[in-house]
Each structure stands twice: as structure tokens, then as C-alpha cells.
């Protein structure tokens, strides 16, 4: 017997994004989707690459960065898509913003386990795409998304108080982030690795980043993510780097 959630999935269209798609056989697609309620799922879209006369078969709509309504069935590893509708226009991510979109998707594919629900993160992801498309500061959007993602998958990073003592982080002071234990007050000799209290408080509060602070924040979140990403490099990060080399 189908479980209740299976039944619900079959009957109701779910808010989703496609994180990644790949061709399957001649005419179909396998989608890696992110659903508000059901988290990451693998879904087979049968015939989505077929062209019926004048009528799109799904492939055009089942694209990354486009809010979708989807319903699917099945209990195996790969579900079968039943219905799809666009839930709005695709986030317009021209040029390098597209690489940012790939980066968000790659993080989700690498860090979310299939089937784990992350409703808050879904809303945050949708908001990040909208913010990128609206031309908001890229570094700010990416850093806050990374911190939010870490928190949602259970690796919350406390950036507004010292580990151990629990003393609040104060502006004008400097801190060091230790991978195992967390924040501690910087001592002499920590110079190069020290993080300003203002930056940490700004990150904790979701405030905009600017100038050199953005650079420091990037190095910090990179360190925070590293243990969960493993040794395989992020390909979208690589693409950024290669593009930068072109425009030097």
C-alpha cells in the first residue's frame, strides 16, 4: 500500500526547482529536483525531449532556476514525473550570474541527502535566485546562502559568540575560527588569520558585505564548507576561476 506521503505526492503539485538534468534514453530526462516538502528527489520525465508538433513536451520548461509545480509517483530511488507546470518565469541569470546559479545547485546536490525535507532552505534558495536576478551583491547573496545551508543541514556555525566561554563577539576585537571548536579570541601571532568582530556580527545578522570584508568572508565560508564537501573540487568554482583567467 502506498504511504500517505506517496499519495499526497501523487495528487498534489509540489513547489520545486530542477537542480540538474541529464538525458535519459532518446527522449527522456532524469531530473535532480529540490522540492519544498520532499527535499531532493530523482525524477524521470518520460518523453520530455520529444517534440510534438508545435507543443512543448516539457524539456523547455523543466529547466534549472525556474520555479515549477511538479507531481510524481513511485517509491523507488527514481520517481516518475506525472504533471508539471511553470510556477513563474525562470530567474534571469545572465552571464556570470549563471555560474553563481550552478554553484548554488552544485552545493545543494553535494550537501543535501535525497529525501531530507528542508522547507526553510527551499525558501532561502528561491530568495537567493531572485536576489541574484535582481542584481543584488553576488558575494553577499552567496555567503549568506552558504551559512544558511550549513545551518539547515545541521552544521550550524556560531559567528556571534565565542565557543566555550559563550562571550558575545564584540566589534573592534579580533577572532580566530578553529575548525574543531569554533570561535576564540585572537591572540598575538594569529594576525593573518584573524577575523574582525564587525565582519562576524554582520555575517551572523545577514548584513551586506563589502570590499575586503567580502574577501575574508569568502575564505571563511570556504573553510567552513570544506569538511562537508570532501576532496572533490566544486566544478562551478573551477568555472569561475577559468573565466577569471580569461578576463585578466
Amino acid at each position, binding site marked *: 500500500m502506498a504511504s500517505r506521503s506517496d499519495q499526497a505526492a501523487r495528487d498534489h503539485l509540489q513547489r520545486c526547482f530542477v*537542480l*540538474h538534468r*541529464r538525458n535519459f*534514453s*532518446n*527522449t527522456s530526462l532524469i531530473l535532480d529536483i529540490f522540492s519544498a516538502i520532499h527535499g531532493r528527489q530523482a525524477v524521470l520525465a518520460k518523453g520530455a525531449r520529444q517534440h510534438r508538433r*508545435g*507543443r*512543448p513536451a516539457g524539456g*523547455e*520548461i523543466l*529547466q*534549472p*532556476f*525556474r520555479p515549477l509545480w511538479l507531481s510524481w509517483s513511485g517509491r523507488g530511488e527514481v520517481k516518475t514525473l506525472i504533471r508539471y507546470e*511553470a510556477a513563474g*518565469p*525562470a530567474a534571469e*541569470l*545572465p*552571464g*556570470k550570474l*549563471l*555560474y553563481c*546559479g*550552478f*554553484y548554488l*545547485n*552544485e552545493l545543494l*546536490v553535494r550537501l543535501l541527502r535525497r529525501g531530507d525535507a528542508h522547507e526553510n532552505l527551499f525558501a532561502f534558495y528561491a530568495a537567493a535566485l531572485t536576489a541574484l536576478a535582481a542584481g543584488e551583491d553576488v558575494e553577499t547573496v552567496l555567503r549568506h546562502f552558504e551559512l544558511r545551508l550549513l545551518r539547515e543541514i545541521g552544521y550550524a556555525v556560531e559567528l556571534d559568540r565565542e565557543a566555550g566561554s559563550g562571550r558575545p563577539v564584540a566589534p573592534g576585537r579580533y577572532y580566530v575560527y578553529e575548525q574543531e571548536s569554533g570561535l576564540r579570541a585572537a591572540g598575538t601571532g594569529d594576525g593573518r588569520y584573524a577575523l574582525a568582530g564587525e565582519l562576524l556580527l554582520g555575517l551572523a545578522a545577514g548584513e551586506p558585505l563589502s570590499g575586503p570584508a567580502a574577501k575574508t568572508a569568502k575564505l571563511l565560508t570556504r573553510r567552513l564548507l570544506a569538511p562537508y564537501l570532501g576532496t572533490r573540487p*566544486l*566544478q*562551478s568554482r*573551477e*568555472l569561475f576561476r*577559468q*573565466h577569471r583567467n*580569461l*578576463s585578466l
Partner: protein
Amino acid sequence: MPEPSLLNQLVDALRCLPGVGPKSAQRMAFHLLEQDREGGRHLASVLEAAMERIRRCKRCRTLSEQELCGLCAKPNRDDSLLCVIEHPSEIVAIEQATDFRGRYFVLGGRLSPLDGIGPEALGLDLLETQLQERKIEELILAISPTVEGSATSHFIAAMAARYQVRTTRIAHGVPLGGELEYVDGGTLAHAFAGRQGVEQS
């Protein structure tokens, strides 16, 4: 485990063809074995030779038995136009459907970080060398308008800008003979943005 029978191995091997599932693979295997051994032997030898001898053209990366493919070897093409496409089959389509007489460059796919497909996999280093060394006046991007295709176009356009090569892309829009009511909103938006004057005389 014992080795699968030769018949099963053949059926399995045939399944590497696109669109061939277990049923049709079995049908093909029985057809060749029961009704067309000669055809089967011929297929095997041509397949073997093709896999051995067909490689990528060193200039445009299309499939070719020679170092330089037929098109690249032709002297009477316009060297100042370079059209970037995804797959070799599109050369045939463009040659038949348009009056384009420039040169081609075949990517063999699109940038897709989540599939691990980066610039090298598409031969973009070779394209860069050509942008640098050949007198190209217009680089035409004929790449699918998917997100991966757009990222690819953006990357190549940035590369061309570095060598001051003008870049254009083919228009995306409503398919000829298509009905507007079935056209997806994104396509419609593209088509709208790329609207053209109508002959009024």
C-alpha cells in the same frame, strides 16, 4: 559466476545504442543471427574500422578519418567566419539549410559543472588558439539556449572579447509553423526581445 552466453553478451552490447532497450536489442540479435549473418559480419568489420580510424579533426573537432576534415581542407570557404556548434550533425543541418560558407568549430557538448564538463572537455583551449592566430571577423554561436548552453556562450564570448573578435549568436524564438499559444513563456520573451521590422512596401 559463469560467463554470460555469447548471445546474452551480444544483446547487452547492442543496448549501448541510443533508444535500444532490452526487447529491441534481443530482436536485433536474433535478426542478425537467424536472418542476416552476412550483414552482421559486415556491421562488425565496419564498426571496428570506424572506431579505430575516425577521430576528431585537429582544426574543427568534427569527426574525420583525416587529420583535417573535408570542410577544413576546402580552400574556398570564408576563413573570417567561424560558427561554433555543439555536435557534428549540426554541420550537415547548417550546410543544407543555410548559405553559410564559413568554417565550423565543434564543441561536442556544453559546459555543465554538475556533470564535470569544463572548458577543456569542449576543446575551448583549441578555440582560443584559433581566435588568437586566425583572422576571424565574426564568431557565430549556434548553441542551444538551455542554461548550460547560455553558460557556454557566455564563456566563449568572454574569450572572443579578449581577442577583439565580434561575437553573434543565432536568434532564438518561435519555431516556424509553431503556434504561439503553445510556446513557452521564456521562448516568447526571447522572441519578443529579438523582434524585427516587417516589410511594408
